[in-house]
């Protein structure tokens, strides 16, 4: 045992302190690098939280969506929609699905007295409200009775309601949808989620408020006149069983379509991950900035450590003379470099954390700090010290004692 780590750290600190200005300049790159690491990691965390929130708002992790695969060009003889009969078959094959909702949609004019509004009307089952975890604020949603009877009823999103009725009561009134007269039986809850990073519309769910809902049977029998359904959603009992159900459903559908990928079966989780992918460019740019500044920082530090070692050649000679081993010299300088970069890292972390609000406002995105990212930043800054300190430390430890002592 020779010079202890604690000793080294104390020596390192006093060296750091006795050359304040130089030390501050030395660690600037590291400070900026770790600062941007903190910002990026907080950004990533914020995006993930946002995605998770979106997922939960749109029915949670147990939701599964079947829709047309637009990337696949199907042969003419294969149908890219399901018939009512097929859907019944599919539903009977997956008893483990808790809710099941096929839907048909049409872009039509909604009118009431002299007001008109173009919007998407959806033919759905009562399960829609369960799957989307979206209820009415007034009146009621579509019931099984409405389905059985193909009742002429409609439930409005808040935007349509407002466009047609203003602040007046709408439940109980009859509106014209395309060419059919439907009775308004309910008004959906207003949906809102902050649309971060967007310019203009700040409600990520404004499209939901523009929808209206009618019984699927009413739409099939009295509206469109066909039972072609290209989209349906369902819900597993819980998030854990969703992937298995998705797999099973996917196979059933492939069997119904001769193994051709006419439809896409996606779980909410996969959808959410896709959404997160779209924001990846943001984080990639920040990662690159961090890595570059850390790299520059490492070069600066290596350079300054080499100068320091030259300055301290005589000291190294003295230490060797009084019994320091080469290993002691190596450790001394390496530890000092790591110490310098770690101190820089700590400053960078503090700076990064205090910058989160500013960046959050600037990007209009939520940034979330966490303990893990602090450790990552610390580890990275220490790692930069290790990388940039190792060559100077080797050079220091290889000095010839006699020549080192003569050095002026």
């Amino acid at each position, binding site marked *: *045992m*020779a*010079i202890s780590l604690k*000793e080294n750290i104390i020596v390192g600190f*006093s*060296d750091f302190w*006795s050359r304040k200005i130089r030390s501050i300049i030395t660690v600037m790159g590291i400070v900026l690098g770790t600062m941007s690491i903190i910002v990026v990691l907080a950004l990533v965390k914020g995006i993930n939280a946002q995605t998770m929130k979106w997922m939960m708002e749109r029915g949670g992790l147990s939701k599964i969506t079947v829709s047309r695969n637009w990337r696949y060009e199907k042969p003419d003889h294969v149908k890219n929609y399901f018939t009512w009969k097929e859907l019944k078959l599919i539903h009977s094959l997956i008893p483990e699905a808790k809710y099941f909702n096929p839907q048909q949609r049409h872009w039509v004019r909604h009118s009431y007295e002299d007001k008109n509004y173009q919007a998407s009307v959806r033919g759905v089952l009562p399960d829609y409200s369960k799957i989307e975890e979206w209820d009415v604020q007034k009146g009621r949603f579509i019931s099984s009775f409405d389905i059985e009877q193909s009742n002429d009823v409609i439930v409005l999103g808040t935007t349509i309601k407002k466009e047609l009725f203003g602040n007046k009561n709408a439940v109980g009134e009859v509106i014209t949808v395309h060419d059919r007269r439907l009775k308004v039986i309910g008004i959906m809850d207003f949906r809102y989620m902050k649309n971060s990073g967007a310019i203009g519309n700040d409600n990520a769910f404004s499209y939901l408020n523009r929808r209206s809902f009618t019984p699927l049977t009413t739409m099939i029998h009295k509206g469109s006149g066909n039972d072609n359904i290209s989209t349906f959603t369902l819900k597993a009992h819980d998030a854990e069983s969703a992937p298995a159900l998705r797999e099973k459903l996917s196979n059933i559908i492939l069997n119904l379509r001769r193994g051709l990928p006419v439809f896409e079966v996606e779980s909410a989780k996969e959808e959410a991950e896709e959404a997160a992918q779209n924001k990846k460019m943001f984080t990639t740019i920040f990662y690159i900035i961090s890595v570059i500044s850390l790299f520059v920082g490492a070069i600066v530090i290596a350079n300054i450590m080499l100068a320091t070692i030259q300055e301290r050649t*005589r*000291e190294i*000679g*003295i*230490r*060797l*003379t*009084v*019994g*320091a*081993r*080469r*290993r*002691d010299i190596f450790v001394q300088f390496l530890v000092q470099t790591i110490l310098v970069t770690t101190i820089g890292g700590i400053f960078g972390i503090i700076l990064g954390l205090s910058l989160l609000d500013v960046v959050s406002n600037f990007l209009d995105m939520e940034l979330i700090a966490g303990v893990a990212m602090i450790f990552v930043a610390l580890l990275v800054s220490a790692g930069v010290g290790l990388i940039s300190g190792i060559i100077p430390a080797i050079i220091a430890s290889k000095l010839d*004692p*006699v020549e080192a*002592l003569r050095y002026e």
Partner: protein
Amino acid sequence: MSGIINIENMKKEYRMGKITVPALNGVDISIEEGEFVAIMGPSGSGKSTLMHIIGCLDKPTNGNYTLNSEIVSEIKKGKLSMIRNKQIGFVFQTFNLLPHLNILKNVELPLMYAGYNKKKRTSTAKKVLEEVGLGDRLKHKPSELSGGQRQRVAIARAIVNNPTIILADEPTGNLDTASGGDILSIFSDLNDKGHTIIMVTHDPAVAKRATRVINIVDGLIQDGDIT
């Protein structure tokens, strides 16, 4: 081969580019334990080189060197630093203290590399500094002391691990006569206590303190022992 230091036919050459400069041309020396040897010679005679080789800081090009019956060229590097740490103490003309450490820390340095704990180091270093008359200056930096005081710190550092051999390279060269005298007295005292002292000097007055003088000129020992 009975001495603590035995040197036989030692040669040392320095390479400067393509030119080879001889520093020692075949030196034979035997030093007994407890001697106070002055190595004298003009500058460039090779006396500092000899000193560095004795102190295991440098290696001879040729020849044998045994220290405490160990052949130095066969000792591993790690152990050489232990020998420098425990068996040899160095005192230099320019003191060679670390300027940013106070004198207590300077004296603690060899103890630190010897692996003693903080408490033991401080108490030992303090005691030795008291012995050389600097017990009231522990927290001073070397720059706050006079030349004579600095050399006493250097001596304290050299003897703090209680080495058998003390090597001094012109220890009074940067001092006025009075403080030089004080320093020499300390060396005499240390010699009385049993330390083997080898001192490089070109001052005959200094050499008078020694029990033996070795003259070296152009890398060769001149007329042997003068008492």
